[in-house]
């Protein structure tokens, strides 16, 4: 029994050390973002002598925070909304329809999940240019829908199987047409998997870097991540400013994380198991 207690204590200590190491970079970024450049270089590890907001005011303007955040929000919401709408319709119908055509379409969607983004980024950029969706936030959201529906369809397809067909038959007897049946009866029942899909897609779209980098050219339409990337390139040595920008960029996800932690973790586990 004594031995068991000491092992348990040892595990707690190890986890605590690990947690401290894991948290260290975030701690460093936060405390140094409140220091002036001079104070920072005297010691990176000590707490700031006086809270110094100058870096944040500077970073706020330089990454055009409000505008960039708005762009990220628009792209994420439109992207997620589009993926959920298109994929739930398609996933439901493909799941309920038997036959070669239906199977072939479903296979096409599923097979494409293995295509790495870096293998299509060159033709995709050309395609976006020729359709002139390149350079616009709305265009980028539409591209996210095109790239994201495959996984969402896969998850919806599996989930629909657990919904009894009798519900649809009853609705149809009551005079609903197909579309009414879907939006009034089926879609509300898909909420659990919709939440999972929305979370996974939010994490993907909000944190994505390469696609916005290829698609957005005008700094007015930059996402939060892209603006910070530009700042990092321009003010290479100005670390206190950069750190403030990094903290500002991380704050939205940390807030969302603290509110939706359970949903996010559940969503990841769910998405992985089904995948």
């Amino acid at each position: 029994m004594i031995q068991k207690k000491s092992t348990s204590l040892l595990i707690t200590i190890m986890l605590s050390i690990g947690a401290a190491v894991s948290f260290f970079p975030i701690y460093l970024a936060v405390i140094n973002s409140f220091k002036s450049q001079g104070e920072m270089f005297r010691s990176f590890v000590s707490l700031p002598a006086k809270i110094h907001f100058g870096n944040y005011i500077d970073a706020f303007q330089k990454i055009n925070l409000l505008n960039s955040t708005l762009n990220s929000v628009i792209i994420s919401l439109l992207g997620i909304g589009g993926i959920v709408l298109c994929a739930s319709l398609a996933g439901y119908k493909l799941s309920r329809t038997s036959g070669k055509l239906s199977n072939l379409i479903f296979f096409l969607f599923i097979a494409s999940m293995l295509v790495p983004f870096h293998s299509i980024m060159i033709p995709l950029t050309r395609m976006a240019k020729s359709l002139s969706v390149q350079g616009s936030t709305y265009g980028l959201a539409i591209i996210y829908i095109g790239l994201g529906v495959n996984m969402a369809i896969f998850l919806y397809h599996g989930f629909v199987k657990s919904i009894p067909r009798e519900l649809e038959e009853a609705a149809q007897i009551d005079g609903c047409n197909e579309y009414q049946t879907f939006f009034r009866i089926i879609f509300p029942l898909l909420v659990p998997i919709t939440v999972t899909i929305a979370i996974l897609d939010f994490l993907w779209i909000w944190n994505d870097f390469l696609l916005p980098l290829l698609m957005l050219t005008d700094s007015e339409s930059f996402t939060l991540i892209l603006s910070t990337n530009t700042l990092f390139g321009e003010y290479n040595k100005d670390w206190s400013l950069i750190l403030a920008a990094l903290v500002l960029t991380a704050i939205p996800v940390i807030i969302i994380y603290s509110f939706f932690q359970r949903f996010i973790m559940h969503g990841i586990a769910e998405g992985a198991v089904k995948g």
Partner: protein
Amino acid sequence: MPVRSFKKYFSLFTFVAPAFVLYAIFLLIPTLGGMFYSFTDWNGLNRSYDFIGFGNFVEALAEDPDFVNSLWFTLKYVLFMIVLQNLFALGLAVFIESRSRSKGFFRTIFFMPNMISTIISAFMWTFVFAQVLPQLAEKTAFAFLDQAWIGDPNVSFFSILTVSLWNGVGYMMIIYLAGLQGVPQSLKEAALIDGATPFQTFRNVTLPMITHAITICFFLTLNGAFKVFEVVYGLTGGGPGRSTQVITMNIYEEAFSNNFRYGYASAKSVILFVIILIFTFIQIRVMKKREVEA
């Protein structure tokens, strides 16, 4: 009957078309187009181009040392990531699952880095590697911290690994935690009564029960690691020179550096696709066999 089957196809069409059109434009056609142009010498501008068979592929693998080096560098990275990421994630999951009160706290802390965008993580760590660690080495007794964390390719390989692990372990940990919660308590208790040590219980009861989670995490790590881009882009930019360049970066450079070798860059993309496909296929084949039903 023809009316009914027309109705059936019409309804299938209206439900599937929105998703399929966008998917076709932005994913299917680019995939097929990239494969098509990988066999040509198209420069991306001219109207005319010639088919050159496997010429681009031969050139990439035989005459392009930068590409081959990036390939080896990526393979080394993938290998380290698969082993270390799963080891850390599973270890953390097992330890955290064994806690009672502090479970939620540790889970929150270890998962948090995963919320932060990879590129932002890389910038954050650039600060740690370039500024903080050298200063710590100077001021404290930890002299070994004074390394060229970003400048020396041999060291920066491990810097890249560190950032990737910091950013990625949390995600796998969540999947392993979910897997561990699916192991029936009664089985573990039975093993305990039979006199198994905690390690034996883990080795012979828990591990076989979570092979499904292991398969998934290996799959996700393998796929993600081959596609590594942001960490390297943010940390070393592929440098010094091209010593830490990964495949995706090599493709990126080839495609967007105005070399105007569209066909050649496409061939490199196809090589990446095929490599990932082969490795994934082998991994799934090998690991699916080991899974047991609960």
